[in-house]
């Protein structure tokens, strides 16, 4: 049993390698397509032609593309993503320090979506055409057509400007507080670990609106997929048989139906997480959230391309790993898929 689980995980790991390679190659190609001459950029506007040439040599930009690609792989292997000239820091260090902010936001958003979306889907599938079903339909329809940046602004207007319940949408923490000592990089968890409840409250208050904005977007596909998957399973023969055998509807639902809906739900969650990783950029901009998305945006505006490239690569690798874990989880949930 255990060896089978490990061989499943091993084969999935191998299966993720081509995607990883593709992501690295495409990011490299995109970087080479970038407009402008990085050497001229680094040398500054006043540099002479020789100085630019010298920098080009230093950066290795005069070598052939395959050689440059090989160098690039070497740099990546050493965790070298290049240098950001807007922050003056190595891109890798910047990304590592900002990634927790993005992850905290995304994970809380996904939690909100799961906690609301799964019950909505289950309720509407077990009671088709009831008022719960209508509410679900409304939520999923609006959720797929509301632009996230617009939802965020509406929430800010209502909860910050009109009601005054939320703090100003500026970052992760009220200016009065300093960040908790870093353990996980998630302010809410770190504050709890440090036992600092005021900071926890402030971090949570800042987090709620952006997380709800993102979560609302993720809610729609989750609720819809849960409903559709469960409806399909509930009309299957084995559910009919289980009912005919006199099992209570709760047992039928939890032990038979939900378990078989889990795989499509897990797959949808993977897809939703990928949306969230992209949409993060928009929400981070709206809420001045200091994550990797707003980092990439600031760099993009300043034509500072190393951070943009690092961001794309980091997010893409994160996504490959995520798909991998979804695959593994599906294999563990449904042993028929494990082969």
């Amino acid at each position, binding site marked *: 049993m255990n060896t089978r689980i490990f061989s499943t995980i091993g084969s999935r790991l191998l299966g993720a390698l081509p995607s990883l390679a593709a992501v690295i190659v495409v990011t490299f190609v995109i970087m080479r*397509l970038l407009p402008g001459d990085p050497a001229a950029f680094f040398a500054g506007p006043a540099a002479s032609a020789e100085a630019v040439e010298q920098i080009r040599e230093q950066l290795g930009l005069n070598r052939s593309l395959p050689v440059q690609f090989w160098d690039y792989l070497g740099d990546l292997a050493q965790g070298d993503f290049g240098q950001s000239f807007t922050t003056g820091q190595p891109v890798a260090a910047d990304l590592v320090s900002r990634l927790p902010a993005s992850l905290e936001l995304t994970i809380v958003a996904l939690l909100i979506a799961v906690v609301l979306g799964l019950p909505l889907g289950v309720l509407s599938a077990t009671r088709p055409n009831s008022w719960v079903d209508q509410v679900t339909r409304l939520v999923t329809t609006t959720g797929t057509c509301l632009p996230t*940046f*617009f939802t965020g602004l509406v929430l800010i207007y209502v909860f910050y400007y009109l009601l005054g319940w939320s703090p100003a949408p500026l970052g992760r923490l009220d200016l009065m507080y300093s960040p908790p000592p870093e353990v996980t990089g998630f302010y809410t968890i770190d504050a709890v670990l440090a036992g600092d409840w005021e900071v926890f409250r402030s971090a949570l208050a800042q987090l709620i609106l952006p997380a709800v904005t993102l979560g609302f977007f993720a809610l729609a596909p989750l609720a819809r997929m849960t409903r559709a998957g469960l409806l399909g399973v509930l009309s299957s023969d084995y559910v009919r048989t289980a009912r005919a055998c006199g099992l209570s509807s709760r047992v039928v639902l939890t032990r038979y139906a939900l378990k078989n809906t889990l795989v499509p739900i897990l797959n949808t969650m993977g897809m939703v997480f990928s949306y969230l990783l*992209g*949409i993060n950029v928009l929400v981070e901009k709206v809420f001045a959230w200091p994550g990797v998305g707003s980092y990439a945006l600031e760099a993009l505006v300043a034509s500072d391309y190393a951070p943009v490239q690092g961001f794309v690569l980091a997010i*893409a690798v994160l996504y490959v790993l995520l798909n991998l874990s979804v695959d593994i989880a599906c294999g563990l949930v449904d042993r028929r898929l494990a082969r």
Partner: protein
Amino acid sequence: MERRELVYLLKQNPLTPLAIIMFAVLVFAALFGSVISPHDPFASNTADALQAPSLTYWFGTDQLGRDIFSRVLVGAQTDLGIALAAVLLAAAVGTFLGATAGFYGGRTDATIGRFTDIVMAFPLFVLAMAIVAALGNSVINVVYASAIINMPFYVRVVRSEVAVLRGAGFVEAARLSGNRNPRILWLHIMPSVMPPLVVQMSLNMGWSMLNAASLSFIGLGIRPPSPEWGIMVADGAQYIISGQWWVAFFPGLALTLAVLCFNLLGDGLRDIIDPRQRK
């Protein structure tokens, strides 16, 4: 299709007629927006900056005193145009690739499949961002980026349909009457693939509009002062916390309704075209 059936379908889904009306309004605004707009969408008038909605300025004015209603009206053309161009391009290239992959199978299929896998290996919005950043910040590059991230869906839809139809009896018959492969594929098989393709395109239009507006919201693609809904929301974002909600609200609402319109239209079309998928 019989009229009775059409009436029945429209009654079953009362949202479809609504979507058709919204679609008509949208197309009308895109075609005649600049003719019927009550004010000049570009004319700034700082004396009237940030006016709340009134009878003169139905949607209020922005920070330069420009009429937001006129700008929303004229912006329809930009947003709709970009989405339409991206969807048509993605559908054309995606259909060609998907049909080739599904019809010939084997190594062709594997190569094209690998290509779509590579695109799908990225979170799509991030890929679009990277493509626009790499190709240069212009409208046409937003179209290309949107087309590239939409393409895999067309490849998959068309490929699976063609792969099934390849072995159908009418294809055998066409071959026995002496038709060559390209003719069989494009004249005999493709007409049957059109219905799911059209549904996919309609659903895709809404998503493309969201994408293009999101890209311009973060400053990629269309440049100010062009009236475009994403930029207008971005412009209005800073006034939300001081209570001037209308600057961002109306363009955002227009975008939401346009996306809703295409989503409903896609669902309605699917009901009409593909009876198996009816709820």
